């Protein structure tokens, strides 16, 4: 592949770096645009076509969002739901995935149950009814429990566990370990990359919790950041209908429009983005899980 020293080799390398670099920059462009627009003042935004570098940087949009208690509160809710939810996801997924690698009674039946939800899922209304009958309406658990185990993640994690040589567990058994000890002391430490990868998958899913919040949480103070974010973005993107429906009769000064949406997007994405670099090495490995084995 790499021909160090030869001219053509170096040329190819250089070309690759440039092309891939440009490609990467292209991916970043929308985010850059969001970033720039969030700092532009409203007047400049409405008068120019495309803004690549604002004439003056203003933080009006951020001041507005950060001064609204809804955004901060919903951010707190999302962080809470993400932390708790991901923990629940990982504990349940890992334990169940391990259990169905063992040759226990009814193992096939349980795998079937999981696979069944993979293919068929109940509609919105039956799910709502279950959430309601279990008393989860208006509880954060309604965002966590209905999607506690993702069947795809469960199956892939099972494959990963099956890739760990049986001899290790057998050796542990000889040393007197029971199933739980094997799981906690042998399997889990060996599965750190898988745990990290799935943790990340789950975390992103939880972070994006949106529709569940709308459906199951009647109290707007419990809504997640995505709901609030969408309101900020959509309201500014509405036709006159929406602007009219705001308290227009009490003609209050409305803060700049698009820029708020952009700033909100950035603020809501930042935390999850910040987690990525730390998990990145596991993530890259995790994506490959089960791609060869199984």
């Amino acid at each position: 592949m790499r021909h160090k020293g030869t001219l053509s080799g170096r040329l190819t390398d250089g070309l690759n770096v440039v092309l891939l670099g440009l490609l990467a920059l292209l991916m970043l462009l929308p985010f850059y645009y969001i970033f720039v627009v969030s700092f532009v003042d409203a007047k400049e935004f409405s008068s120019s076509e495309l803004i690549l570098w604002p004439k003056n940087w203003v933080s009006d949009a951020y001041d507005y969002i950060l001064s609204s208690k809804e955004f901060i509160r919903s951010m707190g809710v999302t962080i809470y739901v993400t932390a708790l939810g991901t923990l629940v996801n990982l504990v349940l997924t890992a334990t169940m995935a391990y259990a169905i690698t063992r040759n226990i009674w009814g193992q096939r039946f349980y795998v079937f149950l999981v696979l069944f939800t993979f293919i068929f899922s109940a509609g919105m209304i039956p799910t709502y009814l279950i959430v309601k009958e279990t008393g989860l309406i208006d509880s954060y658990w309604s965002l966590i429990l209905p999607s506690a185990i993702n069947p795809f993640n469960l199956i892939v994690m099972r494959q990963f566990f099956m890739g760990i040589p049986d001899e290790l567990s057998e050796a542990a058994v000889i040393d007197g370990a029971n199933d739980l000890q094997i799981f906690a002391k042998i399997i889990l430490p060996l599965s750190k990359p898988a745990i990290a990868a799935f943790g990340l998958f789950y975390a992103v899913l939880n972070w994006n919790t949106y529709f569940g919040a709308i459906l199951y949480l009647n109290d707007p103070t419990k809504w997640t950041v995505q709901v609030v974010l969408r309101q900020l973005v959509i309201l500014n993107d509405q036709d006159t209908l929406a602007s009219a429906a705001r308290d227009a009769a009490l003609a209050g000064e409305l803060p700049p429009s698009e820029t708020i949406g952009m700033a909100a997007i950035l603020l809501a994405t930042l935390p999850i983005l910040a987690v990525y670099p730390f998990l990145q090495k596991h993530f890259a490995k995790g994506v490959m899980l089960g791609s060869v084995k199984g």
Partner: protein
Amino acid sequence: MKKMLTVGLLASMAVSMAACASNNNNNTASPSASGASPSASASASASQPSSSAVPSDASKKISISAIEGTWLSPVPADTGGGLKKINEKFNVEYKPQFVPYEEYSSKLPVVMAAGDLPDVIGIEAVDSNFVKWAKQGAFLPLNDYIDKYPTLKAVPKNVWDAVTVEGKIYAIPQYFPSKYGKKPIIRKDWLDNLGLAMPTTYEELEKVAIAFTKDDPDKNGKDDTYGFALSKQIVYGASMGAAWDIGWYNKNAEGQLIPGIISDGYKEQTQFLANLYKAGALHKDWAVSKSTDVGKDFFAGKYGIWYEQAYSMGGDQFKTLKELSPTAEVVVIPPFKQADGQQGFTAGQGYYIVTALNAKMKGDEDKINRILQMQDYFRTYIPFDQRGPQNPDYDWQNGGENVAYKMVDGLPVAIPEGADERPGRYHKVAQWAETDEATEPYKTYADPTARAFAQASVDLLKNTKFYVDPVYRIHSEVLAQKGSELEQIAKEWQTKMIVGQEPIASWDKMVEEYMKKGGKELIDEVNKLLADAGIQGEWK
């Protein structure tokens, strides 16, 4: 370097994942030209002394739950002082639940199906769901209560028809003017700059639009203007009167009313737009542009003709326009004279949002009347000049002067921090105005340009005739099921015709497909329902 690239790519992937996932919902918001909403509600209040609105049997505390959609952001929290004031005034325990309108059309059916329905239900428009639920008996018939409450009595027959299913009135329509919805507007200053007269026919309009494109109407020496603004789905079109509109006005050879979208009037409009496209007077990207973006461009001085409404439009866009082009003057284009001698626009439906009551309350007269008293109180119209601390109801509904609003140059201005102190925020209905003119839309804007536009629109439109589209007054199942799909078929053809991919001569092929895919059935059913109910289209 390689590592950096990987990190970069992964990072952007992460952002996309986090950012995109919140975007996977169908956007159900934004009705078209006719739609808009009550703004007056925030300033809702009664002109009579408040004591008369307090229920007579007020001794009994009643618990009332409600669900409604909202455009407010943030959504009102149920801890606000405004809610407490409602509870005290009406001796109720009012529990409103607010859902953003983008999600409301998903949430309401779920709540319905789960049997969780609150006492009071707000619905954005009378759609097939409303009719279905009404037929299934989910809502309380209100016929016997109407005459008891002045603001309900004031609703005209054609608007009651919209919420009447099988002879029973199932909801209270909330006010929206039928006249002051979106109308075609033109840059008067551009006409003057080029020495052109206000167009009165499509030929003249075409000339004006082309001149606006080519003759530098804003005199800035740059070729940077378009004559006519249009956005995807042919919103808002170019109908200069009822005969060219999508409403049910024109008749076919058998004398049946037909939907405007397949009428000869609409064909003329399509031809007009196709001519403009060919001449470069439409933006090349109109077919993929969002109406909000096109609207913004109009108010940035890039277009000569677009649509706007005098009532409750916000008004900020005019401020922007004035800043960017100080000489700008925007007026409504008067309707063109039709072949049948009529001249006028199609009226809006005359309401926006309907409020239904849960059928389970049947028999609980105290509760029903308490709810209707609250409705009546908040629906009572307060003339514009009384909107201030001098009117106790206005003051109360808006949370008190210097708490939730302050007076600036004679206009009430919101104090954002006090928003939750406003009772009107928790019981958000529009005040029912006696006539559309009574809303005095021009008085509500602080910005002089917006004011001048609204004033000029009212002056023109108050003497303009309006066509009341009869189709809103009946409930056709075929229309509910196939209406939007059929419209989509026609619009696809028409979009192709405008951009020149299909000749206008294909119009008959379009009508044929429309008829075959259910249009025939639709027209037959609508005409039968109209004949049975004895309803006709009428000019007002």
